[in-house]
């Protein structure tokens, strides 16, 4: 909310420095987003045009003799056309400083001009909101009056943020009340009696058909004259960000800014029988708002209607048909209270908001209806209108329920003690009524506060007034509890392990556009059939939830100039039984130059597998893993393995489908490993096996077998066949080609043998090997390569 400091100072004594006021507001819970300083303007005074005539040498100029109080009248030429003798206008005298210029003595077409008649723009006011031409003042403003000082135009404007629970403070008086209580100085609020009270006269009849209108104060004013508002009101409204319209509309806006209660004025001549009905809109009911916009309503909207048509969208905006104009002589005031939820829903559905609705939708206090009406009545009377009796319709005002508040709760929740006397004073400053009652205080919130309903709310009020700085830092002694950190610790260990293995962590967006699926499809791969879709994305780039960490990883690797390595820990999303579900994953990958190697071998794959096994070893404490060749979406059909532990799949490792790699713009082959975080077995502490003291020996075997026999099967068959003395059987070379028959390969495996209690002799070793080889010959048809 824009708060002109000059206006705020009407109600409360404040420090001169706007920054000090802003700081105070921040410490009260109303942070100031910006302090808008006003430009320095000097030498501008009010002048009365005593005479006005044509410039002797220029058709398009006029020359005025301007009375400026004590000094001699000034002769000033102007090109403006909205000037006339008798007007009181803004005059910049010689030497005056304006935002963009300094006034000097100068000749205009041979005639010396002793100053300049100026417009709202030269006073740094939004000129499109003021008269076209020279700024006009009321006759009552004495010529010679310093304009900047009189209208306090040098005072800053604060942009104050008001939390949604404090709609009462979306007003000048509301904020002034807070500042007064905080500084312990009086609040100078306008006296709020309605001049129509007891006046009798005409009454507007209101029928409330909807429970969403809780209260409606109506009041008729006759002898109304519109026209433009006095300069002080127009300037205040403009600085507060509200466009001045005419005297009547300006009064309703002024009262809303001052008291938080939005008002609406109807031209009484347009309301048959002076009868207003608060009801649901009819399906398809047309409504032309006073800004000219046209809408078709649904029963969702609440309207205030005459007997014939909707005349106001409740809480939002009035209708053009009963708008007050310069011809309006009699008006009906509406100061009403609506259900905040209803107004918010309607505003959301119709897609428009107003200053009024931004207050209504936060649920104003019903008691403010009388306040708003009274203040408007005062201003209308000042403007020459005649007030009639205000009439309240709807639910009677009920006093707020008292809150029994334990004094000891201050210490319990804030950590410090305050004497009851001080608590009472603090609350009193904010308008609360406090009565002591047996270790407790019985607290009744003021009628304008609907947000204080329990003891904790009262404590916050006390803390705000005493100052949050009174809360002293203390480290709690946290008692032992049973809550475990398992999942998070695993995630953190995954990250540190992969970082240690040389991978760089990335964090990417979980939402993406349809382009990702287009790319996948272009690669000849089927995208997920039922992706998780966001119903209300801000842009099409946020339409879908990622089904894999792969696309973002490929996009990342595509940006690198050469080989790169990265990992990501994050959730993927999918649909099952129409339910959107999520799973935390880890995905690591590297891009690497292809090696010059035969088609049946890929060193980069073995590196990826090595990283995967090292990772699994750190995570699980195990050191032996089985891999089975397999196919998986997104991976190369012939270069992919699944890693099994106790027969359960825990990881997929392989080359990423080269079609995807290419479509996502990576110029090098990519190898990756993906794991479901929750599928990772828990860490199993490895147990020490004392190694044999006796030397081991080994035999290297070159076995010729069918090309499709996996090395891992030969290894494990050898280990089994070689018996208990075999400590390892590890393939270390592979050959296919002219030296072995077609469809065959030669695999070199080193078998290591060791006895726990003696040195193994060559003869023993040879016997074991011979036995093992003959078993393999029988089971796999292997032969020893010569």
């Amino acid at each position, binding site marked *: 909310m824009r708060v002109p400091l000059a206006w705020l100072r009407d109600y409360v004594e404040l420090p001169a420095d706007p920054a000090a006021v802003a700081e105070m507001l921040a*410490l009260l*819970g109303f*942070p100031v987003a910006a302090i808008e300083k006003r430009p320095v303007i000097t030498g501008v005074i009010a002048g009365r045009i005593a005479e006005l005539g044509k410039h002797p040498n220029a058709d398009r100029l006029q020359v005025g003799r301007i009375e400026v109080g004590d000094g001699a009248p000034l002769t000033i030429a102007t090109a403006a056309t909205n000037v006339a003798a008798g007007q009181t206008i803004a005059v910049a005298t010689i030497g005056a400083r304006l935002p963009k210029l300094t006034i000097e003595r100068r000749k205009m077409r041979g005639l010396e001009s002793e100053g300049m008649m100026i417009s709202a723009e030269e006073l740094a006011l939004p000129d499109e909101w003021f008269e076209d031409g020279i700024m006009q003042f009321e006759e009552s403003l004495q010529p010679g009056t310093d304009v900047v000082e009189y209208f306090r135009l040098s005072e800053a404007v604060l942009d104050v943020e008001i939390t*949604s*629970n404090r709609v009462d403070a979306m007003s000048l008086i509301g904020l002034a009340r807070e500042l007064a209580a905080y500084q312990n100085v009086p609040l100078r609020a306008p006296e709020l009696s309605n001049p129509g009270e007891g006046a009798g006269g005409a009454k507007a009849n209101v029928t409330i058909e909807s429970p969403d209108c809780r209260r409606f104060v109506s009041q008729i004013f006759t002898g109304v004259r519109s026209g433009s508002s006095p300069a002080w009101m127009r300037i205040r409204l403009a600085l507060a960000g509200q466009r001045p319209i005419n005297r009547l509309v300006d009064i309703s806006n002024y009262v809303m800014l001052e008291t938080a209660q939005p008002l609406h004025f109807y031209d009484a001549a347009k309301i048959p029988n002076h009868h207003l009905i608060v009801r649901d809109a009819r399906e398809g009911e047309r409504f032309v708002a006073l800004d000219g916009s046209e809408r078709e309503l649904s029963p969702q909207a609440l309207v205030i209607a005459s007997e014939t048509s909707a005349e106001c969208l409740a809480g939002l905006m009035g209708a053009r048909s009963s708008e007050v104009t310069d011809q309006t002589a009699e008006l009906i005031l509406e100061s009403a209270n609506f259900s*905040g939820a209803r107004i*918010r829903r309607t505003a959301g559905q119709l897609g428009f908001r107003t200053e009024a609705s931004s207050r209504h*939708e936060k649920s104003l206090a019903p008691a403010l209806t009388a306040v708003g009406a009274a203040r408007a009545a005062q201003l209308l009377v000042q403007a020459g209108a005649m007030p009639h009796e205000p009439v309240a319709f709807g639910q009677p005002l009920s006093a707020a329920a008292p809150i029994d508040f334990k004094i000891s709760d201050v*210490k319990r*929740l804030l*950590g410090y003690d305050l004497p009851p006397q001080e608590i009472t004073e603090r609350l009193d400053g904010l308008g609360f009524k406090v009565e002591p009652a047996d270790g407790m205080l019985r607290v009744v919130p003021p009628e304008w506060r609907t947000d204080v309903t*329990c003891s*904790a709310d009262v404590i*916050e009020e006390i803390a*705000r007034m005493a100052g*949050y*700085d009174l*809360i002293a*830092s*203390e*480290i*709690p002694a*946290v*008692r*032992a*509890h049973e*809550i*475990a*950190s398992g*999942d*998070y610790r695993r*995630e*953190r260990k995954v*990250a*540190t392990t*992969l*970082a*240690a293995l*040389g991978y*760089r*962590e*990335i*964090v*990417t*967006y*979980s*939402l993406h556009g349809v382009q990702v699926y287009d790319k996948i499809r272009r690669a000849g791969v089927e995208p997920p059939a039922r992706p*998780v879709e*966001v*119903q*209300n994305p801000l842009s099409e780039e*946020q339409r879908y939830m990622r089904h894999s960490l792969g696309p973002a990883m490929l996009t990342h690797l595509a*940006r*690198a100039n050469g080989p*790169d390595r*990265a990992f990501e820990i994050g*959730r993927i999303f999918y649909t099952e039984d129409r339910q*959107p*579900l*999520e799973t935390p994953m880890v995905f690591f990958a590297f891009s690497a130059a292809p090696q010059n190697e035969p088609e049946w071998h890929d060193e980069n794959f073995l590196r990826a597998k090595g990283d995967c096994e090292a990772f699994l070893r750190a995570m699980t404490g195990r050191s032996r893993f089985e891999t089975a060749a397999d196919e998986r979406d997104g991976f190369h059909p012939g270069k992919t393995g699944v890693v099994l532990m106790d027969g359960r799949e825990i990881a997929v490792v392989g080359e990423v489908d080269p079609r995807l790699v290419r479509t996502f713009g990576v110029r090098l082959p990519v190898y990756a490993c993906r794991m479901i975080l929750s599928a990772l077995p828990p860490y199993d502490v490895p147990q020490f096996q004392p190694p044999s003291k006796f030397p081991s020996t080994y035999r290297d075997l070159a076995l010729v077998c069918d090309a499709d026999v996996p090395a891992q099967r030969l290894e494990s068959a050898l280990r089994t066949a070689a018996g208990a003395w075999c400590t390892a059987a590890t393939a270390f070379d592979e050959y296919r080609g002219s030296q072995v028959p077609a469809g065959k390969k030669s695999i070199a495996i080193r078998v290591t043998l060791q006895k726990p209690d003696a040195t193994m002799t060559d003869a023993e070793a040879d016997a074991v090997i011979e036995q093992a080889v003959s078993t393999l010959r029988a089971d796999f048809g292997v032969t020893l390569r010569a």
Partner: protein
Amino acid sequence: MNLVDNLEDLRARFEDALKNSAGAGSLDAVRVAFLGRSGEVTAVRRSIGKLPPAERPAAGQRINEAVEKMERALDEAQANAEALEVGASLSQRIDATFPAVPPRQGSIHPMKRVMHDVCAYFERHGFAVVVGPEIEPDYYNFDALNIPPDHPAREGFDSFFLTPNLLLRPHTSPMQIRTMQQHRPPVAVVVPGTCYRRDAVDARHLYQFNQCEGLLIDEGVHMGHLKGMLTGMCREIFGAEQQVRFRPSYFPFTEPSAEVDTTCPLCRGAGGECRMCGGSGWIELGGAGMVHPNVLRNVDYDPDVYSGWAFGFGVERMALVRYDVDDIRRFFENDDAFLEQLA
């Protein structure tokens, strides 16, 4: 050939081999060839068997003498060769200023590092770290947190919806409810995790971000404990001199509520023309407060017995301040230069 000639011939060939050997390594080969188990000397020794028994002791004696000489010569040659090698090594001169060969090193994402540091701080003080789903029903996101339907505060959590009542969590606070539903007090947890809000993206705003939530519930827990823990956390993340300031604020799930500020680490609170804090000397971290009695009631905790606090801070924002990053979007761009500098 007789034995003497044999030995003579052996000695000559041994000396040749010694002369031709280069360095300590090839001396081993000479040793094996002549003195090894199946070396030349062994062959000569075997020939003793062919001699008449009376000549055998003398022959053995001569062979032993020859072997002794060869061994001495070998040892000497060995010592010389090693001395030469060490000498050659010591005379080497390299350029120690030449750039290092970098190890293959990965890194933790800077935002995640801040998250880990925050969690580690709270773990040291007895808090557990729990994580929860990113898709949450509106009950956990709002209703249980004292934000009923039509509450104006729901607008502050402008959320992405997947179904009419399932949404991407706009804050980590649903885990407050889940944790309290599963455990009785004392409850002491931090909740790191990804959140989503329909915010327009700019240098200070993201639609996807990470939050770190904290929750402590027990008898006698007050707002001073919150300030104490947050001050400690800020000192861990930003520096030893950090101060923490509370300002009143409003969140439906806490009462009293506070905005938490910490000293601007760049200007150390001086303000002025500081680009980090805009001259206020303070950095806004996020919201906090005493858990609202209605929230405690929603999980069957008695608010007259138990009290506690919660906070929720944006992790990217903390990282932005800690590493003086100019644009918050960088935390999702994964630019190599960015990750490398903050590795």
